C-alpha cells in the first residue's frame, strides 16, 4: 500500500503548480549562482600571488586580529555582521575603556604607551601619505586607508592563544557579536599562499577531489541554501490540500494507517524534491567529465549523487519534516514563517565565513571549488551535523504521524472547540 500511495502522491505533485514553481526556483538558483565552469588553473612558479590561504599559525592569528582591533579602536568605529547584516558599532566611553583594557591585556601596554604608539603610527601613516603624494604624484582622494602602512602592535610576552581568545570573546560580546573578533573570524584568518601550497591544492583538486567532488561541494553549497527553504512550500501545500479540497473527513475515515498516509506523502515529497536536484547536477557533472577527459584525469561519476544524498538530502528531510509537523499541528502556513526565520538566521550568520562553516548550522557553507584541506577539517563535523538533522527529521515525522492519528479521531477538534468556547465566554 505504501508504495502505491507514494506513486499516487508523486503523480499529484506532477499536477501541482507549487511543484513546478519549486523546480523553476531551483533551476534559477542553479543557473544564476553556479555561473560559468571556471576551472582552477595549474600554478606556475614566479607568479606575483597565489591567493590567500587560511592559517592555523596562532601567532599570526593573534597579531592580525590585534592589529585589526587596534585599527578599529583608533577610529572609534567597529564593523560587525550580526546575523549577516552589516552594522557599524560605536561604543560609549565605558565601552571604549573596556576595549582599551582588552588591548592592554593583550599588549601589556599602559594607556600612555598606547597613546604614544597611536601617535607613532599616525606619523608613519602621514609620512607615507606625503611620500605617495610627492613621489607617485597621486591625488589625496586616490589614497585609501588600506594603502597606508599599519604598525604591528607588540604582543604581550607570554600571552597564550587561549587567553587571547578569551579577550577577543569579551570584545566580540561588547560589540554585540558578529565582529572580527568572534571565534569564527579568528579561524578564518588568512595569509598569502606559497607556490608549493598552491600546487598542492591544485593537485588535491585533480587527484583527491577528482574534479567532480570539488564541484559537487560547490553545487551543494548553492543548492543547500534553496533546499533549506523551498521544500517547506511542498509540505505545507500538501498538508493543507486535504482541508482545502474538503477531502479531509473522507480520507480520515479510510482504513489506511496514519503511518502509511503520512509516510507515503513524506517520501513522495522527498523524492520529488530530489529529482530536480539530481537532474540539475548532471550539468556540472558533464562539464567535469568533459574537462577531466580533456586533461586525461580520472573523475568520480557518482560524486554528485554521493554529495547530494549525504549533504543535501538532510536539508530536504528536515525542511519537509518541519513543514509536515507544524502544518499538521496548526492547520496553517505558520511553518513557512518558522522555517523562513530559521533559514534567514542560518544563511545570514554564515556570511562572514562562506568556506567550511559548519557547526550545527542548518545550512553548512562551502562556497569554493577545491579547498580540499578545509573540507577535510570540516568533514567530521559536517557528518555529525547531517546525521543530527536526519535524526531530528525522523523524530518530527513520527510526531506528525501521532498528531495526524489524533486528528483522525477528532481529538484535536475537541481541544479547538474548548478554546473557541473559552474565547467566546471571555468576549461575552
Amino acid at each position, binding site marked *: 500500500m505504501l508504495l502505491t*500511495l507514494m506513486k499516487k502522491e508523486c503523480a499529484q505533485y506532477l499536477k501541482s503548480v507549487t511543484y513546478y514553481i519549486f523546480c523553476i526556483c531551483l533551476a534559477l538558483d542553479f543557473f544564476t549562482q553556479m555561473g560559468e565552469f571556471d576551472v582552477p588553473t595549474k600554478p606556475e612558479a614566479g607568479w606575483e600571488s597565489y591567493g590567500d590561504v587560511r592559517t592555523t599559525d596562532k601567532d599570526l592569528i593573534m597579531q592580525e586580529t590585534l592589529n585589526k582591533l587596534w585599527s578599529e579602536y583608533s577610529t572609534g568605529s567597529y564593523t560587525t555582521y550580526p546575523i549577516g547584516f552589516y552594522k557599524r558599532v560605536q561604543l560609549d566611553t565605558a565601552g571604549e575603556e573596556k576595549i582599551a583594557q582588552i588591548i592592554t591585556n593583550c599588549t601589556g601596554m599602559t594607556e600612555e604607551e598606547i597613546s604614544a604608539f597611536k601617535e607613532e603610527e599616525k606619523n608613519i601613516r602621514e609620512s607615507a601619505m606625503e611620500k605617495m603624494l610627492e613621489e607617485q604624484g597621486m591625488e589625496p582622494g586616490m589614497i585609501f586607508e588600506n594603502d597606508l602602512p599599519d604598525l604591528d602592535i607588540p604582543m604581550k610576552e607570554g600571552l597564550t592563544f587561549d587567553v587571547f581568545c578569551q579577550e577577543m570573546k569579551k570584545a566580540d560580546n561588547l560589540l554585540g557579536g558578529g565582529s572580527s573578533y568572534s571565534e569564527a573570524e579568528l579561524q578564518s584568518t588568512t595569509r598569502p599562499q606559497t607556490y608549493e601550497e598552491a600546487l598542492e591544492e591544485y593537485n588535491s583538486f585533480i587527484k583527491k577531489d577528482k574534479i567532480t567532488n570539488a564541484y559537487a561541494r560547490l553545487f551543494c553549497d548553492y543548492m543547500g541554501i534553496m533546499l533549506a527553504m523551498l521544500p517547506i512550500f511542498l509540505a505545507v501545500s500538501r498538508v493543507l490540500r486535504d482541508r482545502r479540497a*474538503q*477531502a479531509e*473527513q*473522507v480520507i480520515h475515515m*479510510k482504513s489506511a494507517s496514519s503511518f502509511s498516509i503520512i509516510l507515503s506523502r513524506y517520501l513522495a515529497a522527498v523524492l520529488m524534491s530530489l529529482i530536480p536536484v539530481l537532474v540539475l547536477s548532471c550539468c556540472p557533472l558533464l562539464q567535469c567529465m568533459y574537462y577531466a577527459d580533456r586533461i586525461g584525469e580520472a573523475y568520480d561519476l557518482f560524486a554528485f549523487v554521493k554529495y547530494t544524498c549525504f549533504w543535501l538530502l538532510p536539508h530536504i528531510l528536515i525542511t519537509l519534516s518541519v513543514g509536515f509537523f507544524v502544518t499538521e499541528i496548526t492547520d496553517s502556513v505558520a511553518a513557512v514563517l518558522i522555517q523562513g526565520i530559521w533559514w534567514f538566521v542560518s544563511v545570514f550568520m554564515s556570511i562572514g565565513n562562506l568556506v567550511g562553516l559548519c557547526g550545527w548550522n542548518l545550512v553548512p557553507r562551502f562556497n569554493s571549488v577545491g579547498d580540499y584541506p578545509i573540507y577535510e577539517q570540516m568533514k567530521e563535523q559536517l557528518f555529525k551535523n547531517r546525521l543530527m538533522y536526519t535524526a531530528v527529521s525522523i523524530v518530527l515525522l513520527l510526531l506528525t504521524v501521532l498528531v495526524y492519528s489524533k486528528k483522525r*479521531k477528532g481529538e484535536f477538534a475537541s481541544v479547538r472547540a474548548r478554546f473557541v468556547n473559552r474565547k467566546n465566554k471571555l468576549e461575552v
Partner: protein
Amino acid sequence: METQICLHGVNKFYGTKQALKDIDLTIPQGMFGLLGRNGAGKTTLMKVMATLLPVNSGEIDICGVPVTNAAKIRRMTGYLPQDFSMYGNMTVYEAMDYLGVLSGLSKQERKERIPKLLERVNLQNNYRTKVKAMSGGMRRRLGIAQAILHDPKVLIVDEPTAGLDPEERVRFRNLLCEMAEERIVILSTHIVGDIEATCENIAIMDYGEILFKGTVMELLALAEGSVYTAEISKMELEQIKQEYLVTGQLVQGSHVTVRFLLREPMQELFDGATPCEVNVEDAYMYLMYRERGDASCF
C-alpha cells in the same frame, strides 16, 4: 456478527457546550433516518459513529465492534460527509482509485469494483471528468460510490440531498434505498421529504437529544386526529394562525386552503374543518411543538 448499531448513554461535549445528551439508540439493518433541524446534533452523532469524534461518555457498538476500535470500524464503515469533495485536479477514476488504495483494496479489486460502482451511480461516462468540473449532484454520487467502495456493512451519509435539484434528489434517494438492501444506511437530513420517501426507522433530534425514535408509522400515529384542512377566506387567515398551528396554506383567489394542527388534543374546531391524513411533516411539526412548546417555526 449482529447487524445493528447500539448507542448507550452517549454524551459529547465541545468544551462546555453539550452536543449530545444521553443518546440511547438502536439502529437495525436498512435505511435509518436521522431527522432534526440544523444544529440539532445530527452531524456530531454521525461523526461519533464514524470514529471521527471521540465521545465523552457512553458506549457505541457497531455490528458488535466497540467504536473505540477505530481501525476495525473504518474497515466496515463507509462515510459520506456533508461537504464531500476530492482534490479538484483528480479525475473521477483517479479519485476512486486513490480512495480505494486508502481503503486497503488491491489493484485487482479496484480494477473490478470501480467501474461497477461508477456505473451504479451513473458516472460511467465521467471517468475522465475532473472533480472540480463536477456538479454538486455528481460529486455526491461520486461520494456515495467512494463510501461503498470497500463494501462496508454500515454506510453513514450526512445531509446528502442538501442543495440538490428535485430530480437529482429523487435519484439519490433511490440509490440510497438500493444500498440499504444489503447494509445499514444512516441518513441524516433536515429535509422531511427525504425521510418520508426512504426510511422505515427514524430518530428525531433536537438540541443534542433524541425526541423520538421508532418507525415512521409510530411517528405518524403521534399526530393522528390532530391534522385538519379547511377552506377559509383570506380575512380569517390571521385568526386561524393565532389559534392553530398552520403547516400549509394555498391561496386561491380570495380563498385560502389551510392545513393545520391542533394545539391541544381536544381543541375546539370551526365549521368547515375536515380531518386529513397525517404526513411525516405534520407529525414532525406536531412533535417539535409538543416537546419544545415552540410555535415560532409555524
